[in-house]
């Protein structure tokens, strides 16, 4: 049986990965963060039900997914998104805590973002900091939507390669 402290520690270690998973339903990072906190409250409230950190995470992913669907259904009257089958199939391949939010991983990503061209940094900022949709990014930058999508695809690929290289080559 886990203590509330164990559960808190587990959820904190997996905060970013779990929030990203929830955002697969919400498509809104802020809302996903709120749902993550709801899940934390519920998890700590039923601490005696869990026998391992893996158990907590399995439960938290399902609870987060269901809670997100409930919130969207209440707010919008419907949920348009990936199916439950798809969401369940994503769980086994979902990155875990260290890969998602360890200091070296985030630091590597930060350095890789710094290496992007100013133009690509602006696309990244508009899309992922301001939360603008692709069409709004294109509008703001006076580009075609297709151009922005192509740039984003390249940016993600570059960042993935860059982070991988840094994590394997830099001394820990």
């Amino acid at each position, binding site marked *: 049986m886990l203590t509330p402290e164990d*559960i*808190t520690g587990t*959820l*904190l270690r997996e*905060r*970013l*990965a779990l*929030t*990203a*998973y929830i*955002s697969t339903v919400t*498509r*809104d*990072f*802020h*809302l996903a963060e*709120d749902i*993550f*906190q*709801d899940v*934390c*409250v*519920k998890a*700590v*409230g039923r601490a005696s039900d869990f026998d391992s950190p893996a158990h907590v995470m399995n439960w938290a992913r399902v609870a987060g997914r269901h809670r997100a669907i409930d919130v969207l259904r209440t*707010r919008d009257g419907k949920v*348009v998104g*990936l*199916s439950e*089958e*798809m969401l369940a*199939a*994503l769980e086994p*391949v*979902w*990155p875990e805590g260290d*890969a*998602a*939010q360890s200091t070296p*991983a*985030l630091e590597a*990503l*930060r350095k890789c973002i710094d290496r992007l061209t100013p133009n690509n940094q*602006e696309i*990244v*900022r508009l899309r*992922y*900091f*301001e*939360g603008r*949709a*692709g*069409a*709004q990014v294109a509008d703001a930058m006076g580009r075609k939507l297709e151009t922005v*999508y*192509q740039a984003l*695809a390249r940016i*993600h690929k570059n*960042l*993935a390669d860059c982070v991988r290289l840094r994590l394997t080559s830099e001394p820990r």
Partner: protein
Amino acid sequence: MNTPPQPDEAFFLRVMRWQDGTLTAEETAVLEEEMLASEEKRRVFAEWQVRSLQINELLRREAYAGGEKVVPPERHGSRLRFLRWPLAAAAALAVAYAAASYFHPEVASAGSPGLASVTYDAAAEWDGGKSPGSGRMAEGSYSLASGTVRMTLTHDGTVATLAGPARFDLVAPGHIRLHEGRLSAQVSRPDRGFTVFTDAATVLDRGTVFGVDVKADGEAQVSVLEGMVDVHPPGSREMTRIEQGGKLLAHPRRKQQVQPAADVVRGFEDLWPLTLGVDEVSHLIEFVVPQTRHRWNDYRSNTRLYLMPERQRVTTGSPLLLDVTPAGAADPKKLQAGGYPLAAGTRVSSFLLFFRPEENPLALPVDISGSITFSQPVLGVIAGGTRLIQSDDLLGHPRVVYRDKPRRGIEKGRKQEGRDIVRISRDGRRVFFSLHATADPDEFRVLVAAP
């Protein structure tokens, strides 16, 4: 070991459109089908999602690294539910606090510059003893009982003016939550972003001058004087863009109403000048909101000089000739024929002041005199008809038609007692005027240094 083949471009395109919420049901089904058939695509999709959130988190940490303790800018739902499970709440709050601290590890210190500083105060009275005594405003809640206050946000120089009664929170650099009252803002650096949260709508500035008026019942009116803003309901990403001259009404429990850009923007006339950097004006000066169907004939008065903001924070592409500078001529008789050049590349804000008396069959002269004080140095005045026309394209308000304007400039060549005078004070912040108009209007353009 063989590396699995990378997904094709069409897959990435679908993922991006899925993130945007623009995939149709059929396209979503295609995306699901290909991901269910390929573990590599599921893995790439998962990494893409996580990386997107990592980027969001890194940029938020960077944006909020201003030396202040802050909380995430936008929260949804009530935290009262925590109280249902007191023990759980303690631990969960620890999680929430730790999560918030992860974004914002800095804690406010005595020497911190705060989130904003007060740059102008007109009879401001603060409730609850929380007043920005030193002029610095830290993160927290404020209640302005009466008066007007103008503040400059530390992170990017955005100017926000609030009229009491107003209740607001400074929640993070560039983020204000307005519970009630009127706020107008001019964003200094659109690339840094400025956001106003209300219970009815979230307003994202896109480089503009705009106003938000929140009533006691939570209804919010967003009006755009210049530029554009994006508005979305709290918790939603469905943006509505409001162009200059437009207005949006939002209520926490009702549908948003957008009014077209042709509407006259009203409700902030007292705040716009302060927001734009006009500190004090004679009681004779009346602020004019630029309109698409601006009709010069509507502005006739024997006792009013009209002040209309024109282009703000524009950079001159070539040298501009001024008729009056702080060290230059005081009256039209002494206007230097060649003008005083203002260097190319200077960043200026422009204001047009005009005086047109009512119809006057006897052509009796009408006099008006006073002053106007700006928060930034006055670089010069354009008062000659030709130079006004030549500078309309660069400095004139884009929505206002100037070509049907009657005779331009201030009058010259008359006797000393009837001569128009426009002068800039020694400290360079104030413009004095003494105008004598008959049937013809008087008009001059003031150029102020833009921060």
